[in-house]
């Protein structure tokens, strides 16, 4: 590898460059650029961007049994206004988000902060907390469904040892959603913990040293220094978690069956989408649901972005 030329030497030749040479170089640049972005851009257009437009189109159609469809205008959207199932699924998803995201983030920060202290065995803990992240949701759902089994599951047995008759965790419409929320938080802590840990490690030590000199206790340090400096990471994680939580499907699909009494009180928006699209073959209506979901997520993300100015610190 040749030595990197000095700044002066690099700058000088530019003054004398012939304009046509620059033009050919620029053109070959452009050619290379288009070539290099071509596969990805083409792929994105064919499989992602054009489908967005198609889904919008499909949302104005109704589908027959084996693939035929016809234009029906705003029918699907009108139907949405009266669909109690859809309303319920929004409510379910909303509850899911309200509990999963804040609690999950709080616990992940907590674990990350604890792991950031001077203690032994950090990597062991890190690995253990990360285990649920590498496990597929289908498998997680199955083992938790078993733990939650009202008659033969471990959880209710442990409760019976201290004299409590455990409820029907996944069959009782009133609590099934919360049982799922617990599993969601459990499986997500490790992921966000790792991100927060890296964020914590990015906080310059001088802040902590200064606080120590001032005689600040650990709680004050946490709220006045750690949290504000961590806020950009918290912001990023909360947006990603929110968008992810809106789309919850796997856990609910695997844990709640079609004939379960808890179905209506746990169905998420995407679960309903799947039902309409691939079980009931009502693809037009499903497309409308997808469009609705898109709009809702966009609005919420915009709101978050606007609010970020109020609480996120950038230095």
């Amino acid at each position, binding site marked *: *590898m040749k030595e*990197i*030329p000095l700044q002066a030497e690099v700058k000088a030749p530019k003054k004398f460059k012939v304009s046509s040479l620059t033009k050919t170089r620029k053109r070959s640049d*452009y050619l*290379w*650029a288009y070539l*290099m*972005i071509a*596969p*990805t851009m083409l*792929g*994105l257009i064919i*499989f*992602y961007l*054009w*489908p*967005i437009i*198609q*889904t919008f189109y*499909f949302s104005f159609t109704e589908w027959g049994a084996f693939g035929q469809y016809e234009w029906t205008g705003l029918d699907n959207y009108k139907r949405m206004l009266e669909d109690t199932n859809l309303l319920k699924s929004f409510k379910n998803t909303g509850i899911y988000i309200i509990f999963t995201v804040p609690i999950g983030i709080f616990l992940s920060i907590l*674990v990350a902060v*604890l792991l950031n*202290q001077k*203690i032994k065995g950090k*990597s062991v*803990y890190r690995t*253990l*907390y*990360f*285990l649920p*992240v*590498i*496990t*597929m*949701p*289908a*498998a997680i759902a*199955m*083992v938790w469904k*078993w*733990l939650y089994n009202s*008659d*033969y599951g471990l959880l209710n047995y442990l409760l019976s040892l201290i004299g409590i008759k455990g409820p029907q965790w996944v069959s009782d419409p009133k609590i099934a959603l919360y049982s799922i929320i617990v599993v969601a938080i*459990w499986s997500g*802590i*490790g992921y966000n913990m*790792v*991100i927060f840990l890296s*964020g914590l490690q990015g906080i310059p030590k001088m802040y902590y040293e200064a606080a120590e000199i001032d005689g600040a206790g650990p709680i004050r340090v946490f709220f006045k220094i750690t949290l504000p400096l961590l806020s950009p990471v918290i912001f990023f*994680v909360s947006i990603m978690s929110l968008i992810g939580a*809106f*789309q919850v499907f*796997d856990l609910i*699909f*695997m844990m709640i069956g079609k004939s379960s009494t808890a179905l209506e009180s746990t169905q998420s928006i*995407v679960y309903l989408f799947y039902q309409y*699209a*691939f079980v009931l073959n009502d*693809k037009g209506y499903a497309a409308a649901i997808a*469009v609705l979901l898109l709009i809702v997520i966009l609005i919420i993300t915009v709101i978050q972005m606007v609010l970020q100015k109020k609480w996120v610190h950038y230095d």
Partner: protein
Amino acid sequence: MERTKQLVTSKTFLIHFILIVGSVAMVLPFLWMILTSLKTYAESIHVPPVFIPKDFQWGNYKEVFGLLPFFKFMYNTIIITELRTVGQLFLCSLAAYAFARIEFPGRNFLFLLALTVLMVPGQVFLLPQYMIMVKLGWLNSLQAVIVPGLFSAFGTFLLRQFFMGLPKELEEAARLDGCNHFQIYWRIMLPLAKPGLIALGIFTTLWSWNELMWPMIVNSSPESMTLSVGLSSLQGQYLTNYPILMAGSFLAILPMLILFIFLQKQFIEGIAVTGGK
């Protein structure tokens, strides 16, 4: 001196206590999964629960293989994950380099266009993608799962960040050597963006392995199912026969578990990086 030592140890004790309680909660389900997979059905529904089965029922694992082609599922999932990961690493880095290092007309517009994909929830793409697969006759094939997953706006965005952070001098030097853009990308930039590549690689591998909805929609024949879909099929056949379901679950997570044990550091660092950028 004595007093600070005392404070340190009790604080450390508290931290360890909390962490240990959490760790137990993390690991317990897995232990229960393995133990249950080795019980007979009667043992599994016995009240009070049987913790350690009397005889290890390895037959449960045999039964899982006997009914559904689990090896095929594993094979399918490995191929799909591998090709999607390698594909994304190559195609996204190629595009990311161009977006980051070359100034060309339409650059910002095209990049923003790609970013819109990030803003949209996956379900909006699903139906049309499905119709494409139907028209191409790709239902129940591995391509149906692989091909859309080769293109990622997220991967392009992530790697672009990395490429933007590399010094311009390297490029200038290579130009003077007579390298074209591809050579600069391949020989110089790519090796330097390794942390980003590893991060994207791990992220894509994890996501691809665990994916359920899309593979389930396009591949419903046992021949082309992935592990996640296979598990849901297992649940359909065995309903609530938990020893067998647990055996199937354990088999499904085993490959990723093994990979994780060997590449722990990379996994964790990789995920950390996706958050940081």
